[in-house]
């Protein structure tokens, strides 16, 4: 494991004397900024210090100390370690923090999430509505004093399970229709979805009068939540003028299960299988990110062989993700299922490997702190070699021969702008979309984790930022992943697969850690705060899909509705990760 210091040697204290203090709590890094100077400090961090990519915004509820904290993680697009800055406010309603949306546009949805789940009001946010929960929801669920309907205890393991574990099913204890709480004076029967009025209201600003004085009707189309092109239960409320998109708001949360809250009830190890269910296409990558974060916190090394196994698994996962991405993009464009099924063939073969090694095709749960669960069973390495050295390169070529020059595809994709480099950075976009816009930012290179610094590979980058580039960059990345895999297979040493003794409850020292990896969809990061107890105090997932759709409105304005389908397609969202 490479241990890059989380904070570089920026002296924010000297720049804002009296308003900024260094965070000196043991295990913590970064700076605590005075609330009134936040916007100014953030502007300086962006413009003077050059941290132009704000990756994560999240809140922490320090219930016992009666304060709330908002944590920001900013990085330089040229690479290197990040800068953490925080704001602390008293935990008395309303908890107010100035919004950073004017400085970092990418803070938009993340601030809405922090408002929704933690009740932190971001003053100056133009559209501060709930995002994951619905409007008739009582309270802010990530607050430590909020309890879910099936609440048993604050922390697992629950005492009722052993040694007197007479089974009692949650639904019997807490019957259906009795497990709901509503805000005061709220009658669900009489409720008119005020949220929808708010939602459409936020779209109303796009009312335009024709230049000839003609009033034409604009039409609101709800694409989704049940729509084949939205990759799950994603809904976009779109204002249309003819076929042109004039306004758009993403509506998400249909698959929300409060992963963060579950994670805070769990022990560190218990979270591992839960991470599988985030981006269910890439459970290996999800495991990787979580393992990196916890290992940072525990400050342990990973067994050498396990490092290689991890890279092999993560890159195989990337290959199958990108292949399926190509297939699904073609699905969205109307090439029903032929390319998708070709992609699924290779995916099946890769999943066979996951199944043989981890025991499950999709919910792998393969990583442990300090290594992996088990060594590659007999014959699996040979299978990987066969795929990587023989089959996958040929199949990638075949995919390219099949699609890349197809005139229909090219005319659908070429020249339709997704986003330019400047906006992509502004909106905190990461992953292939950012690289297709011409920014060679890949965490495997920019802020290496695991053993990625040992491999020789190029960061795939394309210059136009149109749909075609977004398609081609996936093929490029498959090729680069194959390069990494070839080296990893050659170099993999024998040896133990875990540096730690197997423990069902790990000891984690107090402190914070931000573990980030380059998942196939962009930056996947886990922000953890430990107070030295067996369960994390704060467990936050920063998923690539969720942050990437912040720019969806920006991307789609002025395009045709038919292109919107493709634009949403290239963002490569997965609702399991987006809604959490």
């Amino acid at each position, binding site marked *: 494991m490479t241990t890059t210091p989380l904070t570089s040697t920026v002296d924010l204290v000297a720049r804002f004397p009296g308003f900024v203090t260094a965070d000196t709590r043991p295990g913590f890094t970064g700076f605590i900024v005075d609330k009134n100077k936040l916007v100014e400090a953030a502007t300086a961090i962006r413009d003077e210090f050059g941290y132009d990519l704000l990756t994560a915004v999240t809140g922490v509820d320090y219930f016992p100390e009666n304060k709330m904290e908002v944590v920001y993680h900013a990085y330089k697009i040229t690479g290197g370690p990040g800068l953490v800055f925080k704001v602390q406010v008293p935990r008395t309603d309303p908890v107010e923090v100035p919004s950073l949306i004017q400085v970092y546009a990418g803070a938009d949805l993340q601030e809405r999430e922090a408002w929704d789940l933690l009740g932190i009001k971001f003053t100056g946010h133009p559209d501060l509505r709930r995002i994951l929960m619905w409007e008739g929801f009582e309270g802010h669920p990530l607050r430590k004093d909020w309890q879910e309907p099936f609440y048993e205890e604050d922390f697992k393991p629950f005492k009722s*399970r*052993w040694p007197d574990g007479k*089974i009692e099913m949650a639904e019997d204890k807490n019957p259906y229709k009795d497990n709901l709480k509503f805000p005061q004076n709220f009658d669900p029967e009489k409720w008119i979805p005020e949220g929808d009025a708010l939602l459409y209201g936020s779209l109303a600003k796009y009312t335009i009068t024709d230049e000839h004085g003609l009033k034409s009707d604009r039409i609101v189309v709800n694409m989704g939540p049940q729509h084949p092109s939205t990759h799950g239960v994603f809904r976009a409320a779109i204002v249309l003028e003819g076929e042109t998109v004039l306004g758009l708001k993403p509506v998400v949360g249909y698959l929300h299960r409060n992963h963060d809250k579950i994670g805070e009830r769990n*022990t560190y190890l218990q979270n591992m299988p839960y991470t599988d269910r985030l981006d269910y296409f890439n459970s290996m990558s999800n495991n990787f990110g979580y393992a990196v974060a916890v290992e940072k916190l525990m400050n342990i090394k990973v067994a050498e062989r396990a490092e290689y196994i991890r890279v092999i698994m993560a890159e195989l996962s990337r290959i199958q993700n990108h292949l399926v991405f190509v297939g699904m993009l073609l699905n969205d464009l109307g090439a029903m299922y032929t390319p998708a099924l070709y992609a699924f063939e290779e995916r099946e073969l890769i999943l066979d490997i996951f199944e043989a090694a981890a025991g499950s095709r999709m919910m792998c749960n393969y990583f442990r702190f300090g290594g992996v669960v088990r060594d590659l069973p007999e014959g699996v390495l040979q299978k990987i070699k066969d795929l990587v050295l023989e*089959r996958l390169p040929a199949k990638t070529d075949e995919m390219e021969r*099949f699609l890349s020059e197809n005139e229909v595809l090219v005319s659908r994709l070429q020249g339709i702008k997704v986003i330019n480099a400047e906006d992509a950075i502004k909106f905190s976009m990461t992953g292939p979309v950012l690289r297709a816009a011409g920014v060679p930012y890949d965490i495997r290179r920019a802020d290496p984790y695991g053993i990625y610094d040992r491999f020789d590979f190029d960061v795939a980058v394309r210059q136009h930022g149109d749909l075609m580039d977004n398609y081609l960059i996936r093929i490029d990345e498959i090729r680069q992943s194959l390069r990494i895999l070839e080296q990893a297979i050659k170099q993999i040493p024998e040896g133990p697969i875990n540096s730690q003794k197997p423990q069902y409850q790990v000891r984690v020292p107090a402190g914070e850690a931000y573990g980030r990896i380059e998942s196939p969809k962009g930056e996947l990061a886990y922000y953890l705060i430990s107070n030295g107890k067996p369960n994390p105090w704060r467990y936050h997932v920063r998923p690539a899909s969720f942050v990437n759709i912040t720019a969806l409105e920006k991307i789609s304005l002025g395009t045709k509705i038919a292109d919107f389908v493709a634009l949403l397609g290239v963002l490569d969202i997965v609702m399991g990760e987006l809604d959490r």
Partner: protein
Amino acid sequence: MYGKGILKGLSVTWGRFWATYTEDLAWLVRGKKRYFNQDGVKARAGKDTRGIFTVQYPEEHLTIPEEFRYIPFLVYDETAEEKKEVRCTSCGICAKVCPPQCIWIVRTNDPVTGRPVPVPAEFYIDADICMNCGLCAEYCPFDAIKMDHDFAIASYERNVYNMEKLLKPASYYANIRPLNATREDEARKAKEAAKAAKAEAAS
């Protein structure tokens, strides 16, 4: 030439279309069965698979790898008198490590002394809540709880498994996971031998 790309692409589909039939022919010439036959399934899931890729479930099955995991079960050893010797000591590690907390164990207490006896009185797994993560099997120090291979368990009822349903013989375990079972048996025997040697040395 406009349309060249489409033709190029169509050649791929064309090749894929015929591959099924050429493969069928090749298998026919070799006098082997390609469908409804384990060899055929294996070939279709191998690295050289061409043409049709699908497996005709339920007539055909993919081979289940040894490490495949599904709802856990409890292992018991069969003694000479055909008594079931449950390996579980009701230590509760599986119940503590279980992420969705779907394991419920009642420990046996000695009726006379009131002290706990290392045998579970009752053992429940709520199979509808179980997420098949395999942590219970991974951290069990007695090789008493293991992950099953039987995945066809759909039912109309709420699936709460009790001891009766959960207990399966060690021979079943050795059958579905031969490599693991041998390795664990050897480790256990070595441990017992070491313990015996230690006891002998002490006495």
